[in-house]
């Protein structure tokens, strides 16, 4: 198997806060292949956004820092690069789309100026050629009458339209990897569906890798090839999307899936709250909320990944070598 496009290994990102050191990402590992869609899922505060922003070091640098691990992109460890060398990757090779489209555009400039600026930052085009390119891009992301709207200011665009512009800006550098951090969360469901379809089309066209952050398992089912489940800064389970939805292994993933309407009991929730990020529990991060926790879960480190299926791993002691054969879980509820 060739090297993946992006390979994150044992990534650790910490923030210095008044309450203490927050280990937002505490040893996360995952891969994204070229042309593949990987969904990073987890509750709020599970570290998925920080993990994404750590890839090109977009975390606030005055309080946050990457303290360990490596981010190997196309053979280069990005954590080793200097700040100015990283800017060569940002936008050019790895593009970001953020959650809130309202703030992502600068109200001081027209939409066109912002797209043109990015096009020219990445390609050697003169002003009029860059403008043509910008109109093409806006057209591609589904802005109606792109040639007319290009001179409008962002405040005259709706949220969905702004997110399309943001996407156009992200695509301007023709990136190999697009990191989309909950790009549809702030949008209503019809617009959300349109944007997701658009993302899928563009990904097929360009063959880029897509790392998609969401807490919406419905979205995951729709677009993902592979899923990475994060909890409290750790990766709990990774797997191919059908496999993971059909045979969730980790108790956390099961609990998460049971929260979906139509699964489990009506309005199932996971009892308890996510652990204090400055003082996470020993052993498995999830054990205080886990119905299946055993003594081994409560001490030491997060259990190592154990294979639970084809290209499907879970960080749970119940699947480890010491517990052969795996404890039986209650059967997954049928729809």
């Amino acid at each position, binding site marked *: 198997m060739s090297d993946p496009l992006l390979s994150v290994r044992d990534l650790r990102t910490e923030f210095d806060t008044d309450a203490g050191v927050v280990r937002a990402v505490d040893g996360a590992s995952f891969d994204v292949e070229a042309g593949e869609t990987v969904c990073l899922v987890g509750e709020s505060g599970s570290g998925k956004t920080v993990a994404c922003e750590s890839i090109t070091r977009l975390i606030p640098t005055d309080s946050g820092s990457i303290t360990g691990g490596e981010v190997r992109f196309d053979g280069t460890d990005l954590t080793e690069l200097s700040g100015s060398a990283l800017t060569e990757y940002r*936008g*050019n090779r790895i593009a970001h789309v953020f959650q809130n489209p309202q*703030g*992502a555009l600068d*109200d*001081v400039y027209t939409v066109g100026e912002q797209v043109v600026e990015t096009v020219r930052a990445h390609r050697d085009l003169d002003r009029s050629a860059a403008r043509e390119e910008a109109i093409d891009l806006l057209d591609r992301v589904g802005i109606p009458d792109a040639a007319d709207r290009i001179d409008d200011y962002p405040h005259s665009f709706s949220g969905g339209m702004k997110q399309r512009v943001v996407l156009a800006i992200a695509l301007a550098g023709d990136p190999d990897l697009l990191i989309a951090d909950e790009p549809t969360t702030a949008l209503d469901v019809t617009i959300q569906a349109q944007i997701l379809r658009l993302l899928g089309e563009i990904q097929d066209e360009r063959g880029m890798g897509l790392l998609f952050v969401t807490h919406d398992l419905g979205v995951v089912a729709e677009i993902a090839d592979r899923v990475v489940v994060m909890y409290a800064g750790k990766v709990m389970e990774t797997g191919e999307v059908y496999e993971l939805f059909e045979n969730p292994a980790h108790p956390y993933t099961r609990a998460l899936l049971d929260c979906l309407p139509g699964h489990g009991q009506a309005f199932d929730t996971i009892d308890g709250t996510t652990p204090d990020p400055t003082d996470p529990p020993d052993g498995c991060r999830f054990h205080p909320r886990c119905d299946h926790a055993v003594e081994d879960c409560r001490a030491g480190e997060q259990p190592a990944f154990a294979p639970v299926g084809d290209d499907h791993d879970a960080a749970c002691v119940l699947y480890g070598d010491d517990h052969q054969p795996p404890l039986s879980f209650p059967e997954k509820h049928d729809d």
Partner: protein
Amino acid sequence: MPSKDFESAAFTEVDWDVRDRGITVRKRTLGLLGAFLALGALYAYDAIVAPEELVAALNWDVTRADWLLLVASVFFARYGLFPLAADPARTRRLLGRLRSHPLGLFALLSLAVLTAVGLLGPGLFFDTGYPKLKYRLQPPVYASVFVEDIHYYNCVGQVTDGYCHGTWRYPLGTNRYGEGVLELLVYGVRVALQVSLPTVVLIGVVGTVVGALAGYYGGWVDDVLMRYVDIQQTVPAIVVYILLATFFLGEYSGVTDGGLFAFVGVFGLLNWGGVARVVRSDALQQRSAGYVRAARATGASDLRILRDRIVPNARGTIVTELSRRVPLLVLAQVALAYLSLSRIASQSLGRVIRVGLQPEVLPWHQKWWVTTFAVALLAFAVAAFNVSGDSLRDALDTRQGGSS
């Protein structure tokens, strides 16, 4: 900030690539440099070849304070007027928004007229001859003053029943040295311009750069810069200027500007702290804004983000803060000139008022025209600045969005 190490040759190459794109000098930057070079050449010419009356048509011997004014004008043109001219569509929108502030528009126009008068007036309209003492205390046109009991009084106009009537030769009358008040006002505006524009440009440039750096980088950069500002704020510019004036100005041969150069230096270098503070807090807010994060994610360098995102978005703050400062500076200079703190008098309105209030020849209320017009002009200019600053801020603020 991320460490800047250049370990392997490969990274250095990548770095060069970035720099190649980053350093493309923009045309407007070239224009600014060109303007400064031209000014430098003029200065050399003035210093070496033609020491008197550089601009003969305007009868204008350019002094040190005038050079400062010229440099400041270039800055003002580059960062104030050029953006307006470069994007007519945006300028039209700005004017459209200003139309809903008719008072502000009027104030702006008045200031533009005052600026033109201050720049061109002294050369265009008056022969700077010597004041004619025999024509002292002429009343303004259509006014009269009782002069029967003043010895050696020459009335330019007609005298009826002991009252001297004003003439068009001195439309606003003269003071007790025979200087025309209208002429004094025009020179007063020039002085106000020489004082305020360079000082405000200096304050604006230093304050914006320091504030934006402190707010954007945060951490120790912020600490160092802002603690320095704290220290600097404890030094009142006016006291420093008074000390300088007491010890140096007037003694130093060749100081012909009435301490204007020193004023610009002292007030410009000591007064930018407030601007730095407000720009810093603006930058601090913007640092986590979506468009700054997005710019970073597309590979924009810090310099580019500061120049194209942080500062343009803070322009409303900067314009308000600076327009608030101009009248304060003008008033400070007028106050200092009123106190006669440099022995070589400038043509400041402060001196005009001081001379007018001295009880010689006539009590001040009988020669009211000497002071009243100057005070009215000052009050009008200060009010115009405050009103136009507010309206400009509203018109420039795109963050309010929908209003346009």
